[in-house]
């Protein structure tokens, strides 16, 4: 009788697991890519993507174009820097406008900074290139740029700006762009309803602060989801709200790479707690909110690509809490970015000098 109960329990568990599981297969869309970093889907078979080493490339009608798109500004390809985030204008089909974030060398100096441009994709080149954001001050380091972007429903652009590694304390100050989420209009002007507009000593383009190295940002269902690398441990998923302080480096669940404590504190009044944190680190990178029907069991879930050890985390979020986490695609190595295609497939970029774009589709 006891054995029978165990058998029923096993069958029931297997059925439950199957309810959330999806049968999928991989299809390599492009390979031998030089550090693919950011992906922007024009449609299912037309994709723009950046290579950290400085190329903007395109998959046209399902086939990787041999050359790269011309007119891309000079980038600093060093450390974690290079051609990074890319996003299409909400009206891209009418105006062919795109936005690119990259590490930009300061002319004649040994410093560099995060820069965001808007440009028109005209056939195979970028025209009308305009700098719409440049992080200030510049940094000596080539790390922690952030460099992801997302549009709010009102058409304003969110830009993630990392703490530059050596400048972490400045994430708590409002007079600089280290460790911030930035909100600007697409022409580079500052929305009048930004939280720090008119406040002395605060930069008006700041939307939230106290972040580290923000590697994923997505707007869905009225929420801004943002993920960021912690140091050794302490990677975070946050729901970003205007004028909120996310605590770095005053509170953290991670330790410094040297093994030292960055802060003995993990919480403080006035500083936000993450929706989820990871110890040890998973090194979260891109992020997408799945709102399609193709993988119906995944609808409404958040997908975070991760570099260490290399997989994708599917998160079910309810009431500001992660109630379920599943590790997927752990056989592909380090994954740098993930996006949802209009047809409901997922597109991943694997990291490194021989990176790939891979489509995850139903079997």
């Amino acid at each position, binding site marked *: 009788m006891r054995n029978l109960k165990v058998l029923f329990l096993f069958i029931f568990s297997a059925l439950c697991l199957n309810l959330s599981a999806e049968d999928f297969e991989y299809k390599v869309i492009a390979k031998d890519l030089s550090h693919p970093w950011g992906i922007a889907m024009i449609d299912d078979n037309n994709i723009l993507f950046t290579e950290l080493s400085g190329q903007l490339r395109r998959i046209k009608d399902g086939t990787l174009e041999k050359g790269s798109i011309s007119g891309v500004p000079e980038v600093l390809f*060093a*450390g*974690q820097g290079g051609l990074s985030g890319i996003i299409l204008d909400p009206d891209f089909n009418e105006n062919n406008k795109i936005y690119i974030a990259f590490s930009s060398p300061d002319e004649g100096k040994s410093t560099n900074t995060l820069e965001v441009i808007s440009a028109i994709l005209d056939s195979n080149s970028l025209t009308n290139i305009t700098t719409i954001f440049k992080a200030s001050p510049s940094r*000596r*380091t*080539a*790390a922690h740029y952030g460099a992801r972007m997302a549009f709010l429903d009102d058409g304003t652009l969110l830009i993630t700006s990392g703490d530059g*590694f*050596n400048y972490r*304390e400045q994430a*708590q100050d409002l007079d600089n762009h280290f460790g911030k989420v930035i909100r600007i209009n697409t022409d580079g002007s500052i929305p009048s309803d930004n939280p720090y507009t008119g406040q002395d000593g605060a930069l008006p383009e700041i939307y939230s602060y106290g972040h580290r190295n923000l590697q994923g940002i997505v707007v869905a269902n009225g929420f801004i989801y943002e993920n960021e690398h912690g140091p*050794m441990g302490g990677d975070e998923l946050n729901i970003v709200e205007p004028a909120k302080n996310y605590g770095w480096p*005053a509170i953290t669940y991670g*330790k*410094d*790479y*040297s*093994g*030292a*404590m*960055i*802060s*003995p*504190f993990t919480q*403080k009044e006035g500083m936000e707690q993450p929706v989820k944190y990871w110890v040890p680190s998973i090194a979260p990178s891109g992020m997408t909110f799945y709102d399609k029907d193709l993988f119906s069991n995944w609808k409404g879930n958040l997908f975070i690509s991760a570099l260490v050890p290399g997989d994708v985390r599917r998160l079910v979020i309810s009431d500001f809490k992660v109630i379920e986490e599943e590790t997927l695609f752990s056989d592909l190595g380090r994954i740098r970015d993930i996006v949802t295609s209009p047809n409901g497939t997922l597109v991943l970029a694997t990291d490194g000098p021989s990176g790939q774009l891979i489509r995850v589709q139903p079997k």
Partner: protein
Amino acid sequence: MLKKSLYLIISILIATVLVVLQTTLSNLIWLSSIDMPVSIGLVLNTFFADLIGMNLGGAIPLVGLVAAGMLIAYGVTLILLIWIDTRKSYAYALAGAAAILAIVLLMPLAFYNLDLIAGARTTLGKTILILCGLLSGYYFGSKIENKE
């Protein structure tokens, strides 16, 4: 020889402990400046946690890094002292300072200008760390002097 080895080990340990202390204090002084509740007890707890963390839990064990730097610097000093007539305490103090200077300057070159020892991110921090090396080198040199 045995005593010299012991002095060498103590010298390395002095530098290591001082570097850890500088890292702990530089972090906590900043935290205190933004009104985080830093108490004496917390300073002690954090220092001991850092002592273990930086030597056993980090990407590179600090004591190993310091030992490598000191061994090279002391070795070079030992050779130079064959020709240069000066007090050993001063010579090894300079060697200790040079060892830490090399660590705080060379590490960022290997890691995209990143200062992996947090206390070394400012000029003041670098200077204090170099003084830590100077003190440990002075200890080693003066002990050898006394022995001779």
